[in-house]
C-alpha cells in the first residue's frame, strides 16, 4: 500500500475548473476540507470502535461525496470501499480499508496545508 501525494492528493487544476476559475473559492474549499477531515476521521473512528456500521457507511458516503467534489479521487475511492464494506457488514474489510483511508486523509490534509503555507 503506497499512499503518496501522487496517489492521494487534490487535482488542483480540475478543482479550479470546477470553481469556474475562481482561485479564491478553490482555496476556501480546500481550507474547509482540511478542517473537516479530522472531524470526519474522529466520527469514523468512534463508529468503527462501537461497531456502528450504519454510521460508518453514512459518514464514509459523505466523505466520498466531498472528496469527489474536491477532485481528491484517491481518497474518494477508498472511502467508497469502506462504505461498501460497512453496508455489507464486512467488519474485517472495514478494518483493513480504514487504515488505508486514514493514510489518504492525512496525505490530502498535508497536501492542502503545504499548498496553503506555500502561498
Amino acid at each position, binding site marked *: 500500500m503506497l499512499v503518496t501525494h501522487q496517489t492521494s492528493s487534490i487535482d488542483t487544476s480540475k478543482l479550479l*475548473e470546477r470553481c469556474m476559475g475562481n482561485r479564491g473559492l478553490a482555496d476556501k474549499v480546500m481550507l474547509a476540507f482540511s478542517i473537516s477531515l479530522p472531524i470526519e476521521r474522529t466520527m469514523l473512528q468512534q463508529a468503527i470502535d462501537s461497531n456502528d456500521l450504519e454510521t460508518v457507511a453514512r459518514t464514509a458516503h459523505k466523505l466520498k461525496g*466531498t472528496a469527489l467534489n474536491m477532485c481528491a479521487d484517491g481518497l474518494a475511492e477508498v472511502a467508497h470501499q469502506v462504505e461498501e464494506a460497512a453496508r455489507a457488514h464486512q467488519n474485517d474489510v472495514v478494518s483493513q480499508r480504514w487504515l488505508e483511508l486514514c493514510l489518504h486523509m492525512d496525505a490530502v490534509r498535508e497536501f492542502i496545508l503545504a499548498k496553503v503555507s506555500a502561498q
Partner: protein
Amino acid sequence: MMTGIPSLSGAKTDGLKVLIVDDDPIALDILANFIRVSGYTVEVAANGKEAIEKMRYYSPRIVISDVDMPEMNGVELCRAIRNRQSIQYTYLILLTSHSDTNSVLLGLDAGADDYLSKPFRPEELRLRMEGGRRLLTLEGRDMMIFSLAKLAESRDQDTGTHLERIREYSKVLATELMSWPKFENEVDAQFVELIYMTSPLHDVGKVGIPDNVLLKPGKLTPEEFEVMKRHTLIGGETLSASAQAHPEASFLKMALDIALKHHERWDGTGYPFQLKGVEIPLSARIVAIADVYDALTTKRVYKEAFSHEVAADIIYKSRGTHFDPDLVDAFSKVENEMRRIRFELDEDALELRPNSFYPISKSFELQSHPQQPFPAMANL
C-alpha cells in the same frame, strides 16, 4: 488560459431563481458558484426543512437538491414541494450518487423532474438546467395564452368556465381522431397538445366587439350579428401579426386558424370566408363542434341549458351541413367523455339535478337564416 470550463456565452437565464439544497457546505459553495456564474440567482439551504422555509419568501423556479440529508431528505423535499399550493411550477433536479438508483426512482416518483450523478459535471448540469428553463418558459407561454383568452372571456358575462370546457372538449375529440387511419398524418400527440393549448383563444377577437352587442341579453339583430361576426377577423388579425413575427411557433398558426375559422361551416355557409369542407382547418372544425356543444349545454342569459341528449341530437342533425361528418362521428364515440367534462366543469349541468326539467322547445328546429340555425347558437 483555463481549459475545460464550459462556455457560458449566450446563456439566456434571465436571472432565474435557483435554490440549492445540500448538507455538504463544500458542495454547496462549488455548486452555488457555478450556477451564479451561469447567470442564475442563487440561494442555498442545508436540508429539506430549511429549503421549504426559504421557499416561503424566495420562490425559486429551479431546485437542485442532494438526496441524503438530515432533517428532511431530497425525496421528502420533492414530495413537500409538489404538495404545496403554488401558482407556478418548480423544476426539481436531484443530485445522487451512482450507487443510489433506488433514491432516483423514489425521487422521480415523488415529483423530481430530473436527476444528476454526483459530483456534478458543469457542462451536464448547465444543459439539464437549460432543459428546465425551457420547460418553465413553456409554462409561461401556456399561462400567457390562457390569460389572453381569459381577458377576452372576462368581457362576456355568461360564459363562466367556458374556456376550460372548450379545451377539454377539443382535446377529447382530437384524441379520438388520433386512432383514425384517415387522420394519422394530421393528428398526433402534438396536435392534441396544441389544440388543448390554443382552443381557448377561439374568441379572443371579442375584445374588439362593442359592449352593446357583446353583452346584449336578447337575440341580436341582423346588423348586430354582422358586428359580432367581426370577432373572428379581429382575433385573426391579432394572432396573424404574432404568427408572422414567429413563423416557427406552430401554436400561433393553430391559434390563428381557430380564431379566424371556427365559425366556418362544412357546407360553406359559415363566416367570415364561407370556406367549405376541408378548406376549413381541422383544428377549427374541431373547435366548432366543441364551441357549439358548450353553447347548447350551458345556460345563457338568452336561453336555458339544453340536456346533453338534446345538444347531441342537434349536432347529429347538423352532420354534413354545419359540421364535418367525420367529427360528428367522432363526437358520437366520445359522447360519454363530453358529458363527463360538462358535469365536472359546469356547475349548472342539468343532469346533476334529479328530476330536472329540460326546456326542449320547437325553437330547436332549423330556421331559414343559414347563419343562425338555432336560437342557442345565434349569439355565439
